[in-house]
């Protein structure tokens, strides 16, 4: 694989993404919401806990999952628990952005029939696919990482250093920096595979959006049971997700063959 070819594709894709106002908004707005919401809800939860204490057995379950929170005051414990729920939402960000970019990119090329001229150049399909995959994953990863860093800084200011420490916990680091990119890869691959079969980016996103279900279920399990996933679980999930992503890339590479695109993509 020639890096110059991949970079040429990344460069072009980036120029197109930046000129697509709708796509840019869909990349920029969710991180802002994801930074502000946990801070607001964390503050509100700690205020509410002062007037309406949590049931003892629920507190025990939380502390059982996170012994390092044992010395937290009840208000801090509630705020920490609320903040922890947003971890799974931080995984939705690297899933959602690559899906949007990949579907717009591939369905867009199908609609304008611009791929034939590209495929008639000396670029190899792996290089083209590599460029498209990178262009889709990197913005999602960067925005989620930037949003995470911003959340850490603002949490330190708004909620105090002890609660900011909750977000700097290894579970967050493993989720944001390991599982996040892996989820981005799977999401991008799903976007490519679905886009090769449909001609409307909205349909592709709706079908590809099914990938969010396992991520949302993490949030639901945590909220209902009081059990909190730790760093180890996120690392294992990252490894499994990466394996799924690589297997998906092989399928996508087959769907992205020159002949397939020219003779079957309609």
């Amino acid at each position: 694989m020639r890096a110059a070819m991949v970079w040429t594709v990344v460069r072009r894709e980036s120029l197109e993404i930046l000129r697509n106002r709708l796509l840019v908004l869909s990349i920029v707005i969710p991180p802002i919401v994801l930074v502000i919401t946990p801070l607001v809800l964390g503050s509100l939860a700690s205020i509410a806990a002062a007037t309406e204490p949590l049931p003892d057995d629920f507190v025990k379950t939380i502390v059982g999952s996170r012994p390092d929170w044992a010395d937290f005051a009840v208000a801090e414990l509630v705020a920490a628990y609320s903040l922890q729920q947003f971890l799974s939402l931080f995984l939705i960000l690297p899933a959602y952005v690559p899906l949007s970019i990949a579907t717009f990119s591939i369905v867009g090329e199908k609609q304008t029939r611009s791929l034939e001229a590209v495929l008639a150049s000396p670029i190899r399909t792996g290089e083209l696919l590599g460029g498209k995959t990178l262009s889709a994953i990197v913005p999602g990863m960067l925005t989620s990482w930037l949003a995470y860093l911003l959340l850490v800084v603002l949490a330190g200011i708004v909620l105090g250093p002890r609660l900011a420490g909750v977000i700097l916990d290894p579970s967050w680091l493993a989720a944001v920096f390991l599982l996040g990119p892996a989820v981005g890869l799977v999401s991008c691959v799903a976007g490519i595979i679905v886009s090769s079969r449909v001609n409307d980016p909205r349909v592709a996103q709706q079908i590809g959006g099914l990938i969010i279900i396992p991520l949302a279920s993490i949030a639901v399990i945590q909220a209902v049971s009081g059990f909190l996933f730790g760093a180890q679980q996120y690392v294992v999930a990252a490894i499994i997700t990466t394996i799924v992503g690589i297997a998906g890339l092989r399928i996508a590479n087959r769907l992205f063959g020159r002949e397939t695109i020219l003779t079957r993509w309609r």
Partner: protein
Amino acid sequence: MSVPAPAVRTEGLGRRFGELWALRGVDLELASGEVFGLLGPNGAGKTTTVRLLTSLIAPTEGRAWVDGFEVTADADTVRARVGILTETPGLYDRLTATQNLDFFARLHGLDPATRAERIERFLRLFELWDRRDDLAGTFSKGMKQKLAIARALIHEPSVVFLDEPTAALDPEAAFVVREAIASLRGAGRTIVLCTHNLDEAERLCDRIAFVRGGLLRVDSPARLRGGDGNGGGPSLRVILVEDPTPVQMAAVAAIPGVSHVAAGAAPVDAGVAADASLTCRLTDLRRDAPIVVRTMVEAGAQVIGVHEESRTLEDVYFEVMGRRPQVEGVTGGVDAGQS
């Protein structure tokens, strides 16, 4: 002195999609610098031919070489040596004209100085230089087509495949494109032109192939028009005052190189007040026509005029394709009294 390798060569080239052969048994040789036209109805296999020769799809049977490189084994090299204008311009609408060309120039590995020089040259050639920083999505159909042709030429390929290059262009833009094609030929580039425009094919092409599932006939436009579809030469019509006698017709038929002698009415556009004529087919118009006239006069015929019976490429096209669509009168078939 060694003979230069053909720019394009195929041997029994064929491609099947499922059970259907789109193209079969194509044997072809294109000389370097030749402009070669592919004419045929939709679905005849023109685009399949182009895709096979640009290494976009692999042949089911047979082989092909471009600039001496085999389209399957040396696909990367072939793609570096060909330029293609696809059926639709297929531009990136959110990129400027310059950015569109720059992207393809990079894919072909051109260095920055060469990229800049060629982008300016081709944008100026196609009168798009003033719009170089505008998004391609804001361009008219004609401008998009010109930009797509510039894209096909940006790496100065030795063989250029143009699929309907003047479709959707206004007459002025079409003229610019035709001039550009002519100048490419002057620069020694081999051009394969797919077109439905018979007049364009006749004006631009050195040779034309009629395509329908294979190559039905390949020849120069002049020979195609002059022939009878079976290898015969041009036709001559001699306009007479009276119908030709059997003796006169036999005298003409006896001339070497003359065949298909027949009597017939004068053509409507003959421009003379005559109602009789003799037609015949000649091997060589310049040599045989004066002999036919002299023979007729010597046999007692009163000759008013002589016409070369010219056939259009359209006539030949339908003759080769074996069908000419029957068109109902557009104003016929409607009762005046009907509401």
